[in-house]
């Protein structure tokens, strides 16, 4: 069977792409996971001169996120879960429940579980969380922007739904702050206090 790593039409982005395929390249080896105080140098998309060409993404664990259909599905899942929860409670507080449950689930899936379920990759991504694998580690791509916006929008809906009462606003705020910090570009490959390093 063959290995294909291309999925659907992706709009061209003005971001320079550096190869991550070479065996033992610095960005992928576990030894370069730094501590909190010296974050890994990040390739700024604007720092490279030239046309800024993005090569095809090869990571089959994550490249399905680049298609808009996946985003539609994600939003549809959230809406459906809100509808489900609203049938048991008041629709306003339902957003809070959805926001918190979504926060917990996506934290585990994006920022805790490491590696890739595809055996063919031979453990190349074993030290990287799902979030770090998206778009081969490039920052500020459309997929990342969308996924960062979702918890923020959910937070707004949740706070609006509870009329900005002190609680659950506090809980919602903590959840959204944790999620957004986890998705920041400067947290790429950072492990605070060495937690979840291996």
């Amino acid at each position, binding site marked *: *069977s*063959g*290995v*294909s*790593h*291309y*999925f*659907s*039409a992706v709009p061209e982005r003005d971001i*320079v*792409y*550096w*190869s991550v*395929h*070479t*065996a033992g*390249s610095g960005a992928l080896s576990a030894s370069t996971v730094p501590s909190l105080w010296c974050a890994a140098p990040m390739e700024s998309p604007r720092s*490279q001169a*030239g*046309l*800024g*060409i993005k*090569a*095809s*993404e*090869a990571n*089959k664990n994550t*490249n*399905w996120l680049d*298609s808009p*259909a*996946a985003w*539609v*599905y994600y939003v*549809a*899942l959230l809406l459906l879960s809100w509808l489900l929860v609203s049938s048991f409670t008041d629709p306003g507080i339902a957003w809070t429940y959805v926001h918190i449950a979504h926060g917990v689930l996506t934290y585990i899936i994006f920022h805790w*579980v*490491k*590696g*890739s*379920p*595809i*055996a*063919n990759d031979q*453990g190349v991504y*074993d030290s990287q969380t799902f979030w770090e694998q998206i778009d081969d580690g490039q920052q500020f791509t459309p997929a990342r922007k969308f996924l960062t916006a979702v918890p923020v929008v959910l937070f707004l809906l949740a706070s609006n739904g509870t009329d900005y009462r002190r609680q659950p606003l506090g809980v919602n705020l903590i959840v959204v702050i944790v999620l957004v910090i986890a998705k920041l570009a400067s947290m790429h490959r950072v492990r605070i206090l060495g937690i979840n390093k291996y």
Partner: protein
Amino acid sequence: MGTGTLAPSLKQALFAYTSFTLLYIFGQFRDFFRKRWSKASLKGYAPIRQDYEDFYTRRMYYRIHDCFNRPITGPPSSWMDVLERTPVNRQEPLTTTGKIKRCLNLGSYNYLGFASSDPYCTPRVLDTLSQHGWSLCSNRADAGTTPVHEELERELASFLGKEAALTCGMGFATNSAFLPVLATPGTLVLSDALNHSSIVAGVRAAKGTVRVFDHNDPEHLERLLRTALVEGQPRIHRPWRKVIIVVEGIYSMEGEVVDLAGFVAVAKKYKAYIWLDEAHSIGAMGATGRGVCEHLGVSSADIDVLMGTFSKSFGACGGYVAANKDVIDYFKAQCPAHLYATAMTPPAVQMVLSALRLITGADGSDRGAHKLSQLRTNANYFRSGLLRLGFNVLGDWDSPVMPVMIFQPAKLSATSREMLRLGVAVVEVGFPATPLLTSRMRVCISASHTRQDLDYALQLFDYVAERCDIRYGGDTARALANTGPKIQAV
């Protein structure tokens, strides 16, 4: 993509995502309970596999693993005997029940029909077997080169229009062992996004840098190449030593023919080398079977290394590279596959040699030309038939490989089992061999299929389409059904 579309509609995409989500949730539940209830076998040892790395295999592949790796008995000609197996039982291995099912073979890469006994090739193969034995028990460099090997390499080189050729015992290893010899440190390798895993393995093993360009897109290749040339090697920014572009003749998962003229133009402009993997196109494309160069009117002198395998059109096993004499001499001196891997077995060499002579007409008959035209006619007839039935069929006209899109992971197993029950052997491919939502059923047509076989198969495809609802081509497909090359009546 040729006569079909690779990306699903939004509705199909949402259904497929739902399927995968359910599979994921069920898989996680089962893993959770397995961890609680299983006993650790070796205390103090690190686990030999990471459980997440294996997640797809355990929780998705093994649910439907009766659809893959089906054992057969006897030669895989246009009809073959498939051994029936016990039903799926978690991750227990399947055992054969002893019953044999006679199936129409639409899964083997038997393009020219050499998989079964041939009146010209088989006697010669048996002669070589008695003369040289079954195995040479040596690598090529030590004691593994026979006159048959040399004869094959000479005739192959002249068939392909190159100065010299070199064979290898294994087709996969031809890419994975020969590419690193050329892709030394400082080399830039530009590889198509849908290249075969043998090319990916070869390029990963190489010390050169690889960049992946969008499938069959010479413009994207040119933009990537220009950026790479301007920026130089990563970190040190020195000029690249050389640039190699790796493409395939026919992409086996898409049935699509490469835009070779476009790539050759880019390669010539920037003085890059081209490595063309003709595993599926040699012997199957082109008026005289010389591959995509002939089919597309590109001179083989413009391609620097022509690589191919003998397991598809030639009915043997092994692979070859063909290039200028100095490149082949370099391979002979440096390539580990030539220096340390066992030589191609003499009967297989003779099979390829005889098949080659048959194809070129050197055996004195026109059977070769007849096979080639029969393959093309069969391929176009079947593709036209599938399109008329409303399937979403990928690939170009004249290509004997036809992936039929299924999109839904559950329909993959449904169609596979239904097809087997009806007596048709097709190969089904899903994630991760293909992108997530693009599961497909791949049909490979052979010159040995008769028109009756193809009509019978089309009837069964129609039936399965009704049962499993896989007519994703719609009216676009039906409109394309008659746009192919004219098919002569039987």
